[in-house]
């Protein structure tokens, strides 16, 4: 896969405190990672320093199976960034992951940008790698399973 959206959007990088670094590093390896509490087993997403269920600071990064279903979606048409001028519509999906407490991740739905989208449809992850970018990064996209 090349890229779903045009070049020029902001490149994701970890925060100064490095909280989300294992997630972005995982994507570059082709692995979907999320946090899990070592004390109570709760999946935590997005990245945070504490478990919202038991208040343990002892969270670890675990690989998540890249299968989920569409929880919601939207189709932007109006470009709000210069890189999107003239690009046309695209689809953003919010995907819930049943294998990880139904945590939700955001991505694009690959394929025809004007396709009919069904909430509840099964999807699987597809990694979009940008090794030539400065700095290099990867994204987690979704395609119908």
């Amino acid at each position, binding site marked *: 896969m090349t890229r779903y959206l045009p070049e020029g959007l*902001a*490149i*994701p990088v970890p925060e100064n405190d490095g909280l*989300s670094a294992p997630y972005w590093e995982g994507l570059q390896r082709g692995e979907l990672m999320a946090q899990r509490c070592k004390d109570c087993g709760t999946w935590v997403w*997005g990245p945070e320093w504490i478990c919202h269920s038991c208040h343990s600071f002892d969270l670890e990064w675990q690989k998540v199976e890249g299968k989920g279903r569409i929880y919601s979606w939207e*189709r932007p048409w109006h470009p709000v*960034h210069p890189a999107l001028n003239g690009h046309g519509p695209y689809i953003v999906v919010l995907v819930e992951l049943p294998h990880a407490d139904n945590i939700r991740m*955001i991505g694009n739905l690959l394929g025809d940008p004007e396709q009919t989208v069904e909430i509840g449809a099964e999807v699987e992850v597809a990694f979009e790698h940008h090794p030539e970018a400065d700095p290099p990064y990867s994204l987690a996209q979704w395609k119908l399973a």
Partner: protein
Amino acid sequence: MSERTLRGKTAVAGVGETVYYKHGQSPDSEFKLALTAILKAAEDAGIDPKDIDGFASYSNDRNDPSRIAAALGTKELRFSNMQWGGGGGGGGAAIGNAAAAVASGLADCVVVFRALAQGQFARFGQGQPVKTISGDMAMQAPYGLMSPAQRYAMKCMRFMHDHGVKHDALRAISLASYHHAQSNPRAVMYGRALDEAKYDASRWIVEPWRLFDCCQENDGAAAVIIVPAERAKDLPHKPSYVLGAAGGSDHRCGAPSHNHPNYASSNFATVAPHLYEMAGVMPADVDVLQCYENFTGGVMMSIVEHGFCAPDEVNEFIVKENLIAPSGKLPTNTSGGNLAECYMHGLELQIEAVRQLRGQSTSQVPGVDVSMVVAGPMVTPVSNCIFGSEATL
């Protein structure tokens, strides 16, 4: 111990607003706009502006109360308050914060204000071109999810899916705002009527929202002065008593990457009951509603979460005839609101709620005693407030 409530302890004594402009068209600086609105509110209240001793705002207003107090020659500054959170979600909470300060004796005369000159600063509706991004926006912006419309559209889409809501309900909200704006010469969209065909032909901004589902971006300022109830009785206008206010959001509403458990929501699930409890009213008692339209979907879900109709009754209840003054079941956004009067970050809605109680609206509902405002649906924290006539005390 006395009852812990704001009910009836304070009142709006004066309201003020500048001319409302399209974004980038204000001839005045944002700070001058703020001062102008505050001076007009003081004049309306019949008080010396130098007697204002407190300032409350929200959404990171750029106009620092200490600078305002110095510029106005304020005799003494006693309350300087900012409600955390963006997106206009603090419009009701700022009224509550001001009322709480006055009711508790922290200050005697507090002005709630909001000033915006988006032409002089960044626009809300545009992503900012930057090379790299981190934090929660790193999970969104690379996928083209940047603007407020894009941030909240998926909440509405899921709610519509869960409850079989048709686009006609969203359209009705937009039509009602534009309908009321045609009677309001202050409205930016005065003289620019909207009908079903024009709405249906408008372009998508982000599905499920078309152009006319989205608020304007404007320049201007608004101000509301709150004083103790007993003092308000001696001032020129019929007092609009603060019956209640509430602000916040439900369990883990701010969870990153759209992980709020109660996602398909305006975020008022827990906030609305607190408001009704303090105000001592039921949804059926509300005579007129001003409900912040960032996007029509937020209004639709707010109407549900404030108990005006059940989720599965939206298609029947949210129709234009029910939303328009004077005779609709729930006259809503009677000045034209954020869509068609002005996007003054919702503070213009507080002013319209007061006008309805005074009998001064350009789309007046007869005999208003309970006048309600909903601020910033879908953001966190959200807030709301209810004003009442003397008959409600």
